[in-house]
């Protein structure tokens, strides 16, 4: 294990570690533009040059491997001057677009200039004029004046998606990134390019001109749209005085998770966030004669607990039927199992999930719900046989639809609704189902609650809320605990479940790999 001294700090690193990585381990950040941990070192930006004792020239830290006894300086005058000059060269031909550039506030050129530059411009020539609105993909715009030729975009498409749509054309100062006409970037990972671009050369049409990055909160969550469980960051507007709100969620970005999605998310996960803000069920309501009448949650719980109590007393809990989906969290599924299956002896529990679609061979799985594995680990058979529900009369049907009301067969409900005494729909999204049920109750999607999900590899991942619940939305776990307490069912057990942590502790042993949220 070679030892390296960086800026006076000595540390031991694994064989084959680069100076850049070793510095990172020592808490020292070496600026870089073309380097990205997902790709082999490129060595073209020259920003990561450092001083190595005994070496005649400055050397690249991104590609130079640590040798035992190496002494490196990242803050010497020579290094500082080299960094300034790289920034000066890049800025010489860079347009002063910051006031209109989407990347402002999260731009590496801005950040590094602030940290290592702060020199006055000495460029007094005529800048190169280039195309500023090149459509290179369905949601990507390339501004060639801003491009610093780091080639991260080109390399991403060659090494990660292996589709290679982008190329470098011309030579020297005229070098430019582009596509072959008729062959735009057209794969399920195109959105990563706008994130990957260190500057505002590649921007996302979805985000273009909508807001400023510093108006947004960025909070971690897990994508619920397939079984991969990619780490994401949901960016929502802070809500500031005198700043027009526009929308709540502005974008979803990827988050690093070496074990699951490395540095990327697919376009499905990136661009499907509108459901968080649009057509949300806001308040609990009773549906009477084609109209929704708002009720308080307290009233709802009184009504529902009365119905369940009635069935309990008459030993008719078999007349309860539950429809679940595998977007529910481990804690929620556990509560359903405990409350309905075990305590109330409900046997008619089915799953209604959207049908499997095609996986893309990278991150997107064929399974399009995030917790099928969690449901299986808890012992649920993921039967979706709606006909089974007709075996006996249903007095109370609870449909947990989460963010997927379209997975519930409308036609079945249309046909059977009249035979079911009370139908309750728990969902976050408005749909035509609303008119076929008696109660529509707002739930919080994954982005707005806490819990854990088990991905396709059996990895249990904890998550916390990235957004405030919309309107009066409740997480399903809170609904279930409250319901259990109000009936009441086993108050000694359910009465102590005041948090996800408490639920997870009581779940211990039920889900392999579940470690409580910190």
């Amino acid at each position: 294990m070679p030892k390296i001294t960086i800026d006076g700090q000595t540390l031991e690193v694994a064989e084959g570690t680069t100076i850049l990585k070793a510095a990172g381990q020592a808490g020292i950040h070496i600026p870089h533009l073309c380097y990205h941990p997902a790709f082999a070192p490129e060595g073209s930006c020259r920003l990561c040059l450092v001083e190595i004792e005994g070496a005649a020239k400055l050397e690249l830290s991104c590609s130079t491997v640590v040798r035992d006894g190496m002494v490196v300086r990242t803050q010497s005058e020579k290094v500082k001057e080299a960094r300034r000059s790289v920034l000066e060269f890049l800025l010489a031909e860079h347009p002063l677009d910051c006031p209109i550039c989407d990347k402002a506030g999260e731009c590496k050129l801005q950040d590094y200039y602030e940290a290592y530059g702060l020199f006055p411009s000495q460029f007094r020539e005529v800048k190169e004029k280039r195309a500023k609105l090149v459509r290179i993909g369905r949601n990507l715009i390339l501004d060639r004046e801003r491009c610093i030729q780091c080639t991260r975009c080109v390399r991403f498409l060659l090494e990660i998606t292996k589709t290679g749509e982008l190329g470098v054309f011309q030579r020297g100062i005229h070098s430019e990134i582009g596509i072959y006409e008729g062959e735009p970037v057209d794969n399920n990972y195109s959105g990563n390019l706008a994130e990957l671009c260190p500057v505002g050369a590649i921007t996302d049409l979805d985000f273009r001109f909508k807001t400023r990055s510093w108006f947004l909160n960025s909070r971690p969550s897990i994508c619920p749209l397939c079984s991969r469980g990619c780490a994401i960051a949901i960016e929502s507007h802070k809500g500031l005085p005198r700043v027009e709100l526009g929308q709540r969620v502005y974008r979803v970005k990827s988050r690093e998770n070496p074990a699951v999605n490395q540095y990327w998310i697919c376009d499905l996960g990136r661009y499907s966030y509108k459901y968080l803000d649009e057509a949300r069920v806001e308040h609990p309501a009773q549906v009477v004669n084609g109209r929704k009448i708002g009720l308080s949650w307290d009233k709802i719980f009184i009504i529902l607990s009365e119905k369940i109590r009635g069935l309990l007393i008459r030993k008719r809990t078999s007349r309860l039927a539950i429809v679940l989906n595998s977007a529910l969290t481990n804690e929620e599924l556990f509560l359903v199992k405990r409350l309905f299956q075990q305590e109330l002896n409900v046997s008619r529990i089915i799953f209604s999930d959207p049908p499997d679609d095609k996986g893309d061979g990278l991150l997107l799985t064929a399974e399009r719900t995030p917790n099928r594995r969690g449901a299986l680990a808890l012992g649920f058979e993921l039967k979706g046989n709606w006909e089974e529900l007709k075996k006996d009369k249903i007095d109370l049907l609870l449909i947990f639809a989460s963010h997927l009301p379209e997975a519930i067969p409308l036609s079945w409900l249309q046909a059977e609704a009249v035979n079911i005494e009370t139908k309750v729909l728990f969902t976050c999204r408005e749909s035509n189902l609303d008119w076929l049920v008696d109660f529509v109750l707002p739930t919080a999607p994954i982005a707005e609650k806490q819990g854990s999900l088990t991905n396709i590899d059996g990895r249990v991942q904890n998550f916390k809320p990235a957004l405030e619940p919309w309107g009066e939305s409740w997480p399903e776990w809170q609904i279930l605990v409250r319901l259990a307490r109000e009936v009441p069912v086993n108050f000694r057990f359910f009465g102590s479940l005041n948090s996800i942590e408490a639920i997870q502790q009581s779940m211990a042993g039920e889900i392999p790999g579940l470690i409580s949220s910190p």
Partner: protein
Amino acid sequence: MSQPSLELIKKEIETILPRYPRKEAAILPALHLVQRRLGYITAESEKLVAQVLGVRPVRVREVVTFYTMFSQKPLGKYHLQVCSNLSCTLAGGETVLDYLREKLKIKVGETTADGRFTLTTVECLGACDQAPCLMVNDDLHGRLDKTKIDELLARLE
């Protein structure tokens, strides 16, 4: 003069492939061949080369635009490439260029209306002992002066 079909060009490229351990390595000879047969690199020929070599067309475009000998526009029958580097300029290369501009009545980068001459400047041709030089297609002409240029142009029909 009819243009050879892409089919024929494809067959020619295929004879070059076995010289190399990997197909993609044949991209420069393939493009040289295309330019000799078609006069320049057309979009169709880019796609053809891409297909024969098993790469995406964008990779071919990357190469075509990197190397100065490939032209994406039709070239005149005689491509006059005047050296604009040090030794030739010291020997009067700019006078050669100016004279050609005057005689052909075109600017650098342009082709005469009758399609006979294209005039470009190039970097060192590796014939500095004969400065000032130009190349007409594959042929080098050195020690140029106005007389020699007149004679040369007269020979090129």
